[in-house]
């Protein structure tokens, strides 16, 4: 077994996870990136999507994350700061589908640049939620 590092995921409504992990896979701009212990110190951007991390007992924990920042510290510990982070089983698919439809409707209308950006981000979040939830249900 690979060595463990400390992983801390903080969302705006509380600390999502704080504990040991063997491997973390997160969505970046250009695909998924995995981080293991003794990774080089760095700062990165987490995209909207699904993250997964391997727990001490070898099981994978999935979560749907909205955009945030990730930093790796010299001692190997990793901290993620994201707007929201949810377990797939906690996702309200009905609400997510509604949000997706709302975002699609909004995109049909003429919007200012800011509104457009926000609608796109909302749509991406809703789609990530639905995807994460459907993984869990199947």
């Amino acid at each position, binding site marked *: 077994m690979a060595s463990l590092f400390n992983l801390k995921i*903080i*969302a*705006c*409504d*509380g*600390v999502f996870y704080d504990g040991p992990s063997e491997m973390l896979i997160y969505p*970046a*701009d*250009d695909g998924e*990136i995995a981080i293991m212990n003794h990774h*080089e*110190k*760095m*700062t*990165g*951007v987490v995209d909207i999507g699904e993250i997964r991390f391997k727990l001490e007992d070898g099981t994978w924990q999935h979560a749907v994350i909205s*955009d*945030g*920042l990730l*930093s790796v510290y010299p001692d190997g510990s990793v*901290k993620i*700061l994201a*707007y*929201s982070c949810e377990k797939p089983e906690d996702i309200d698919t009905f609400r997510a589908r509604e949000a997706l439809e709302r975002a699609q409707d909004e995109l049909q209308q003429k919007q200012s*640049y*800011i509104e457009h*950006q*926000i609608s796109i*981000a909302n749509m991406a979040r809703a789609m990530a939620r639905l995807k994460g939830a459907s993984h869990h249900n199947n």
Partner: protein
Amino acid sequence: MASTKEIQNRINSIQDTMKITKAMYMMSSMKLRKAKKKLEETEPFFKGTQIGIAECLAHFPDIRHIYFDNRVEDDHETIKKHGFIVFTGDKGMAGAYNHNAIKMAIQRIDGLAEGDEYKLFVVGEVGRSFFISNGYNVDENFRFSSNNPSMHRARIMAEYMIDLYNKGELDRIDIIYTKMLNSITEELCVERLLPLKTHSFLKEKAAKIEADAEGTSKDAKELKEGVKHVHSLNSYEMEAISQGDVFIPFYPSLKGVLEKLVHNHFTAFCYGALVECSASEENARMMAMQSATDNAEAILHDLSIEYNRVRQAQITQEITEVIGGAKALKKKKLKKKLQSQ
């Protein structure tokens, strides 16, 4: 001395007012409980982003970028446009809560360098109506309330402000909000969200603070006392810079991370400020209503004593009158009897 009727009226009206203040006290104590829970949940995120940005900036290479306001054209600007985001409440009756924020904003505007322009972005109806009616330069399109804070609202706020900044309509963005330290004390904070502090600036300041061991200089004092000033270092930044001065890789790119960093930090700060403000407002209102109820009780106490005294005096007077009348009648009767005899 007032008549019993007048005093009775006064007592009734105070009792009615007390009913209102009591009800408002209960409402705000309930809202406060909700806001406090939210505040507790948000605390790690809010603190985490502040630590995060301090750490990033401590290791960020010096580049010329609009977010540092050190591009060549920025250096040649003589006029800096300031934007102030001021957080107030939607309603009054919250003690000095709204007033303090407004006062601080005015103080900041008065302290601007000659020729600098400013624009106010006011959250909350009380502050907005104050600044508009007093002829300050307020952005009319910025309409938000600090009630029931949501991430969505914080996001829209942040996008709006960053868009203005990127368009060059603002060069400095400060945020004025009230922080809840504990249930009794609240602190007004002013923080600069944009431009960010450059690595060299942080290093210089930290070196200065470390160099003077006695901690007598202005910078060291500010750090120690936790003074929130736009030019002073906070403890997060001090800690981050003291951990080493190496540049770390940024993925996917320096610019990508910086862009994300600014958006994240801004949104998180807006959200944090919204949550802090809603909790502080309810707290301030609760305390104000508590003291209003106490005062009403004190006045009622005094008035009831006065009322009783007046009533007693009146009764005494009436009895005297009756007795006087009866005596007079008796005398009259006696006289009549004597005359008839």
